[in-house]
């Protein structure tokens, strides 16, 4: 599963879906003016891979950063903290623009999010908590240590470096 060949978009997408469903936490990168900032967040990816969801309370630093600059990156991986990670582990970086989920869409996406993270029910249901959606522009997938491909999910084509 780890060192798969990623020639085909569909294969790549299948891989991403599997990775996203096997992982619960990802790193979220935001920035405050010129200072980058990173967090671990509990995430969920929509089935079409176009959106990544996470939740945060509004008084946090990450929320303040996002409010000023909605451009974010997220990092996912399947490392096991062993030497073999160097040949086996895969890391995925997603870049995109984040916005708060509101209105009728919220009920549906919140349900999906909680299906993956049922233990966050109280947290997500709090009026002080925001559900956020990253509209992904590009996935950067790194495997076999140095092999990188890009998946431009918005127009659905991919390029090898």
């Amino acid at each position, binding site marked *: 599963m780890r060192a798969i060949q990623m020639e085909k978009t569909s294969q790549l997408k299948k891989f991403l879906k599997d990775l996203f469903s096997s992982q619960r936490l990802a790193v979220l990168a935001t920035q405050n003016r010129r200072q980058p900032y990173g967090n671990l967040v509990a995430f969920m990816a929509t089935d079409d891979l176009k959106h990544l969801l996470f939740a945060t*309370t509004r*008084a*946090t*630093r990450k929320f303040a950063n996002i409010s000023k600059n909605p451009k974010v990156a997220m990092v996912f991986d399947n490392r096991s903290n062993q030497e073999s990670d160097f040949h086996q582990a895969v890391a995925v970086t997603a870049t995109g623009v984040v916005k708060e989920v509101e209105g009728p869409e919220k009920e549906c996406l919140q349900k999906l999010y909680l299906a993956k993270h*049922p*233990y966050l*029910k*109280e*947290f997500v249901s*709090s*009026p*002080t*908590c925001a559900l956020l959606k990253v509209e992904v522009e590009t996935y950067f997938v790194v495997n076999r240590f140095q092999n990188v491909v890009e998946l431009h999910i918005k127009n659905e084509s991919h390029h090898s470096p």
Partner: protein
Amino acid sequence: MSLIIPLDQIKEEDKEGVGGKAFSLALLSQTGMNVPEALCVKSEAYLQFITCAGLRERILLEINRKNFKEMRWEEIWDASLRIRNLFLHTPVPQEIGLELQSPIAEKFRDKAVVVRSSAPGEDSSQASFAGLHESYVNIRGVEAILEHLRLVWASLWSDAALLYRQELGLEIEKSTMAVLIQEIVNGERSGVAFGKNPNDASQAVIEAVYGLNSGLVDGTVEPDRWILDRQTRKVLSHSPAHREKWVRPSQEGTHLEPLTPDLSGKPPLNDDEIREIFNHVLKSEKHFGAPQDVEWTFRKERLFILQSRPITTISSGSSEDKRPWYLSLRRSFENLKVLRKKIEEELIPAMVEEAERLSHQNCATLSDIQLADEITRRMDIHGRWVAIYWSDFIPFAHGMRLFGQFYNDTVKPEDPYEFMVLLESGKLKSLERNQKLEEMAAMVRKDPSLALSLEKFKTIEDKAFKRKLDEFIQQFGDLSCSVGEQTQCLQGPEGIIKILLKMAAHPPAKKKRRSFHLEDLTSRFLSRFQGKDKHLASELLDLGRASYRLRDDDNIYLGRIEREVVVAIEEGRRRIEKRCQITVEGADPAEVVKALKDSDYIPKRQPSTEPIKLSSELKARQILGQPAGPGIGRGKARVILSPSDIFAFESGEILVCDAIEPNMTFVVPLSSGIVERRGGMLIHGAIIAREYGLPCVTGVPEATSLIQTGDLVTVDGYLGIVIIG
């Protein structure tokens, strides 16, 4: 593996999966004793339930919210209540339900059953903890049985079990629970027997009551007691009870009734029956190889053994161990009703009278020696009331919990604290006090010349205002005395005037806007019940409200007595300062007494306690506490480290304190939120915050040292977090 097994099919290899209680009953039944018919839901069912229903991580999140060692008993109760609500709201997944339903339906049909825990290790010979987990009596029908199965599972995380988690080996990752579903044997006479008297190893003890055992176990029905000689099996003594009440089965559970006159004159057991019970106890002891604690009942002259477990007592070791005391706070409804009468009819009037009497004694006219004696006398009086506060007022707080549990079981709300809304009355003493303050502030607001003369501490010429102020001080004191271990007091009305000027500088604090009428809510709640149940619901609600009110009012009443102690000590301090030309602010009262009695003695000053300073490199950004009042508030922090800090409070600030003392509640309406170190949803501070609709987070460890006055703070009362910066 099957998830459910009849009692008579339990074998040695099932021991682990069925728990101690079920296993010993199975053994007793196999030796020919009468035991109630039963099914055992194995511990595997619990594990499958929490895994399939996604509860595992939610329980773990709740338990790990805070370092367990830092949790007060009230916070443990809260955690346990929230877990219980999770179980109450999570149906048994279909695949598990299907496996349990048909054996239960087949065995019991519509017969009433008891659903009780049989946790592995619960009754082992090393540890026997009666009453840590729940039992539910008189449950009928598969659906109700499955619901109560979940509640018994939830009691694996009861407050009591969590308190004794180390002794129980309660491992958050691994703990599990089997459950017994037993036919109800509605005995006419029931009791317990100890094969070996814990106080004398040569004796055994049998206790018996009329009716069901629950009255004896929870202490509401006094038992007849027989002491027997283990060797000769003869009765050594009989202590008859005042036989007044008995617990009888009812449609939906049990209820307490007056005992009929023919029974109250007669012991529940005759000599033959005592012997029969004792023989069973010895037989059981032989079988299990250790003296047993046996629960039994007679139904139509036939003896049933309900339970047998090794005798062990919770050895608390030292008096430092407060846990048995905490558990004693879980009072029954009957017990609380009696307590309420005592508090409302005897204790509160006596307390008011005491404060009144003390306030008439003018300390200034006493000689030094007389004053020294008066200080000692007042401290003794205060000490007596503090003892009553702990022995009667604090246990009465359980009335709120009792109502809360009833509400959650019957209404099944999403929010386990929804019941609090029904308790809010707006009639608390400190609210009355704040209302009077606001009336005075309104006078200042309207009259700039009055404000000016107050600012300059001139004589107050406005007679109406002066009268109001004097009346206020008469009724509530001058707000400057602190209650608790400190005995410091600013003299005179300067403190109140400062606060009034601050209040007057802002428009009046907005009252909480209720989105409902309490009457509507009350009638909606009561309309769920019929007949006897309606009466019970209404009685429990009334008890809950009284308990809620007292949580605030008792502080005010105790505060009045405390004030009189402080007044006497202050008089003493003033005299000593004049004589010795030193400041003795904060000197220990015993030192003041000593110096008053001996004019050569110079009192030692108490070392002042500095707040913990944090390193400049390490700063708290977000602290986790308990969500005790919903809402979000943001403002500058005002950290209360000493009683006088409260007078610097500015409108819109966040009140950060160790615990909201009665002399602090008057700033609550000015604040934008409350952060308290002491934890719990039902504590005084949380109650006051709810009354004003303010966001409140309690149980924040080191709140007063991690947060500093002036820090910008966000109080998230929904999630129980405080964000600094």
